[in-house]
């Protein structure tokens, strides 16, 4: 357990690779291969939430899943986390079946709802996974204190969740997901319930945390600017049945180089309109990566285009 307790980005002997068991360089963090998930619906044919989806996520890569509500983003994330199993196809995480990766605690997860335990303090909530996995008291305390500082809540360590704002609760949930220094972070609309200002601040913090921890991230969102700002690649999904429409490489550079001024960058706007065009289902513009200059007539349902 000791090597999972290193400070994120701290001076670990052996360098910049996080987590205990170091994956080989060519093994993807996530490998989704031909995955379908059909939910049985009474006597009917069932709901095809995902249809033949394939996707690789490299170690340290930040990949966003975007698409209108009901296109299977959460389903895909839950499959990767082995909270659900695919109807067909296979999912590997660091070269292992998803189930084994879950048992080995290879990923950290944050949901749309913070999902904190209301009877535990901020520190107690962050210590929860460490406690359940048998980390000693002193080591737990130390790790929780580091993470609380990382998400900027040092003054609130002894507070209970009902004494925190929604944004603060979400930061605790992110710290909890980071507790065991996972090499993979799974996040399902973690900022969905936050106001725009808090949200941008959280995005900046997430970029900083990712630069520090070098973790691969699969991030579900329905905000185009959020996806483009955070990601190396944006996966655009389409609904009924849930399929990958296209994958947009953002190429805004290294996480450590991303700052607030990126939001004003020209490349940022180009990627923004590319993703937007893809979401609106205009096949001509997909792949060109150029802004069309045409204001879309209708927004895809459930997707924020601002």
């Amino acid at each position, binding site marked *: 357990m000791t090597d999972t307790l290193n400070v994120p980005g701290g001076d670990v002997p052996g360098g910049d690779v996080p987590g205990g068991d170091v994956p080989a360089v060519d093994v993807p963090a996530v490998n989704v291969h031909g995955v379908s998930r059909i939910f049985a619906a009474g006597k009917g044919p069932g709901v095809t939430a995902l249809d033949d989806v394939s996707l690789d996520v490299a170690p340290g890569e930040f990949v966003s899943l975007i698409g209108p509500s009901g296109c299977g983003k959460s389903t895909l994330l*839950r499959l990767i*986390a*082995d*909270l659900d199993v695919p109807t067909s196809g296979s999912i590997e995480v660091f070269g292992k079946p998803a189930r084994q990766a*879950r*048992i080995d*605690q290879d*990923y950290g*997860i944050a*949901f749309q*709802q913070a*999902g*904190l*335990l*209301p*009877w535990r303090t901020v520190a107690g909530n962050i210590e*929860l*996974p460490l406690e*359940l*996995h048998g980390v000693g008291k002193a080591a737990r305390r130390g790790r929780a204190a580091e993470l609380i500082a990382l998400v900027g809540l040092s003054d609130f360590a002894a507070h*209970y*969740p*009902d004494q925190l704002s929604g944004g603060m609760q979400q930061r605790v949930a992110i710290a909890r997901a980071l507790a065991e220094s996972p090499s993979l972070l799974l996040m399902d609309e973690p900022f969905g319930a936050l106001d725009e200002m808090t949200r941008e601040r959280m995005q900046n913090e997430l970029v900083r945390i990712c630069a520090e921890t070098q973790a691969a991230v699969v991030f579900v969102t329905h905000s185009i600017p959020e996806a483009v700002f955070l990601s190396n690649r944006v996966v655009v999904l389409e609904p009924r049945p849930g399929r990958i429409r296209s994958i947009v490489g953002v190429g805004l550079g290294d996480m450590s180089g991303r700052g607030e001024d990126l939001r004003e960058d020209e490349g940022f706007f180009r990627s923004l309109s590319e993703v937007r065009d893809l979401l609106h289902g205009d096949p001509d513009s997909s792949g060109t990566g150029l802004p069309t200059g045409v204001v879309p007539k209708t927004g895809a349902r459930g997707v924020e285009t601002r």
Partner: protein
Amino acid sequence: MRTAQPGLLQTVLAPIVFGVAVILLWQGLVTGLAIKAFILPAPFAIGAEFAGNLNNVAGGMTVTGRNSLIGLVIGAVLGIALAIVAALARLLDEMAAPIVAALSVVPIVALAPVLYTMFGAGAETARQLVAALAVFVPVYFNTLKGLRQVRPVHRDLMRAYAVTSWQATRAVTLPTALPFVFTGLRIASSLAVISALIAEYFGGPVGGLGKSITSAASSSNYGLAWAYVLGSIILGLAFYCAALIVEKLVTRRSGG
């Protein structure tokens, strides 16, 4: 978010002022209208009897209180334990549900005469069992309900952590259920006192509040009978308040 607590003055002083006013009005009516003692004795007379027989009333409270407490503990332990088992094993839950539902509609004090013949009229056992049965039903149902309140996001979290089902039960299921358990106990606490007291009317040894009320009334000592009633009220309130305080302490963090 918790609501602001009303001031101490409001929570303590207001009921006291109201209570004193009611007692004065009652005393005024009884003396003014010359109501007979067997209909309604004056509060000062009851108070005098209460003070004069303090040892006897306290003795009755001890006997009945002890039976109630033993019944409360037995009923609560059984109710919580069986609810946990029922929550873990679906089949057992389905088998137990009709039995517990039947228990909840039987007037449990009606069992007292049967229990007296089973355990002997000289023992307190029958009264304790009556109290335990009365306690069992609300504790069982509330605990079972509480054990089913785990939020899906917490269930997902436990699965993501790949913990054993016992670890998940301890980390999430039991703390989620706790406020419900204590709500059950609060309801059960006054039931325990009432059941143990009424069970005394059906037989068994003397000394408890129930027996004392009947014997004082049958010897036309109405003031004393009411003094024992006052003792019963104090005992019931003590049980209820104790359970309420524990519940408030436990429920403090159950929101969010």
